[in-house]
C-alpha cells in the first residue's frame, strides 16, 4: 500500500503540489491525469524517491520513504518517457548492468525471459541506438521489471509512440504488469501508477483514475466506476 499524507512540493516560490492525500491499495492500477504542469510527474518522482516532498509523508507498506528510501528503491520500477537506457550499449549489456545495480540473482535467465516477453530476443546484441522508439520503450519496460518490483511507476510511457505502438505497450503492460511474485502460490498483483495525456487509453488501462488540478486531487474514482465525463470535466 502506498500512502501519501498531506504531500506538498514547492520549487522555490512555486508550489506544485498542495497537501495531496492519496491511498493506493496493493494491486491498484491508478491512471493519474491532468494538464501539463499540474504536478503529475512531480508526484511520481516523489514516490520513486527521485525527489523529496517539501512537507508531508509518503509511506510504502507503513515504511516512511524519507527514512528508508535506499531500501525501498528495490520495490519500485520506473518507466518514463526517457528510456533510461544507454544508447551505446546493447540491450543485453543494458539489462546486465541494471541487474547488477538491483542485485538480481540468476540475471541471465531473468534477462532472457524478459527479452522474450517484450519481443526483443534475437536483437539482444544490437545497440539500443539502432532500436525504434517503440522497441526502446519495450526494453525500458524490461529494465523496470528486471527486479520484479511490486510497485511500477509509468510516467507518460506512451510519449512518442504511434497508435499501434501504444496499443502494443498497453498489451505488454497488461501482460507483464499484473503479477510481481512470479509464481501462483505467491500470487500478488503489482501496484501501478501511470500518467498519460491519452485519456481514453489511460482509463482503459487502469482500474482507478485520479485527476490532478491546481496541485490537488480534483477527481478520484476510488471504489467506483471511472466516469469519463468527470475525468474530462476536471482535466
Amino acid at each position: 500500500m502506498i500512502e501519501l499524507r498531506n504531500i506538498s512540493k514547492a520549487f522555490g516560490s512555486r508550489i506544485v503540489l498542495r497537501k495531496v492525500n492519496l491511498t493506493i491499495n496493493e494491486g491498484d492500477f491508478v491512471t493519474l491525469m491532468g494538464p501539463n504542469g499540474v504536478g503529475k510527474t512531480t508526484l511520481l518522482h516523489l514516490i520513486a524517491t527521485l525527489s523529496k516532498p517539501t512537507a508531508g509523508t509518503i509511506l510504502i507498506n507503513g515504511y516512511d520513504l524519507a527514512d528508508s528510501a535506499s531500501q525501498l528503491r528495490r520495490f519500485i520500477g520506473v518507466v518514463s518517457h526517457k528510456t533510461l537506457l544507454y544508447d551505446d550499449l546493447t540491450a543485453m549489456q543494458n539489462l546486465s548492468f541494471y541487474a547488477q545495480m538491483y542485485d538480481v540473482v540468476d540475471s541471465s535467465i531473468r534477462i532472457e525471459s524478459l527479452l522474450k516477453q517484450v519481443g526483443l530476443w534475437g536483437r539482444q546484441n544490437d545497440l539500443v541506438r539502432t532500436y525504434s522508439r517503440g522497441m526502446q520503450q519495450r526494453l525500458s519496460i524490461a529494465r523496470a521489471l528486471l527486479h520484479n518490483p511490486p510497485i511500477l511507476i509509468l510516467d507518460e510511457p506512451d510519449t512518442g509512440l504511434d497508435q499501434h505502438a501504444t496499443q502494443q505497450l498497453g498489451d505488454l503492460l497488461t501482460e507483464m504488469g499484473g503479477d510481481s511474485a512470479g509464481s501462483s502460490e505467491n500470487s500478488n498483483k503489482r501496484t501501478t501508477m501511470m500518467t498519460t495525456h491519452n485519456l481514453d487509453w489511460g482509463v482503459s488501462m487502469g482500474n482507478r483514475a485520479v485527476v490532478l488540478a491546481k496541485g490537488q486531487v480534483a477527481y478520484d474514482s476510488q471504489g467506483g466506476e471511472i466516469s469519463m465525463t468527470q475525468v474530462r470535466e476536471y482535466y
Partner: protein
Amino acid sequence: MVQSLRLNHSHDELHKLINPDSSTTVNQNLRRYIRKTLAIVGKDVTTEIRTKEMVSAMFVFSLLIIFIFNFTFDLRAANVQTLAPGVLWVAITFAGMLGLSRSFVLEHDKGVLEGLLLAPVDRSAIYFGKMIGNIIFISVVAIVVLPVYMIVFNQPFTHFPWLGGIVVLGVIGLSGVGTLFSAMAVHTRAREVLLPIMLFPVIIPLILAAVRLTAAVLDGLLFADVSHWLTLLVAFDVIFIAMSYMLFEYVVEE
C-alpha cells in the same frame, strides 16, 4: 532477490528486507558495493571503447598542446628544463578537463543518471565508479602522450617510470575533484564554461605539487628535496576524494 520482492510479505519478512541484520550483511554489502562500483566502471569503459569520444578528443588535444608549446616557445636547450614540467601539466589538466566535462553529459542528456539514482545503489558507489572511469581514461591518455612529450622536449626515457607515477597521482586528484564538479556542472546550461571556472582554482595546489615533482625528476633532484611536494600531492588526493565522497549525494540528489 528477483522472486522475493512482494509487498505482501509478512511484517517480519518485510522488516528484514528493509532493515537487514547488520552483523551478517557487512561483508555482503561491501561486496555488493564493490560489484556495483565496478559495474559502473565497466559500463563506462565499454561505452568508451565503442564510441572513443572522450579518449580520442583528450589524446588529440593534449598532443596539440605539447606541439603548440614546442613551436611557440622555440624550446632551446637552455629553457627546456624550465618550461617542460609546466607544459606537461597544462596538457594533462586541459585534456582532462575535456574528458571530465563529458563525464556526466551522456548520463544527463539521456536521463540515465535518473536510472542510476532510482536503483538501490549507494550514491558514493556512483561517484567512485565514475571517478575510477575518469582516472582510467585520463591516465591512459597521459601515459600514451608522455613518450611523445619526452621526445619533443628531449628528455631521457629513464625518467618515464617516475613521471608516470607522478602523472597517475596527479590524475587521481584531478579526477577525484573533477568528477564531483562535473556532476554539479552538468545540471547547468553553461556547463562547459562552469566546470573549468570551478575546478581550476581548487586544483592549484595539485598542479603546483605535480609541476614541482615533475621538475625535480627532470632535474635529477634527490627525493628528500621534494618529499614535501609529494606529501602535498597525496594529501590533496586523499582530502578531496574524501570530501567529494561525502558531498556527492547532495550534488546528484535534489
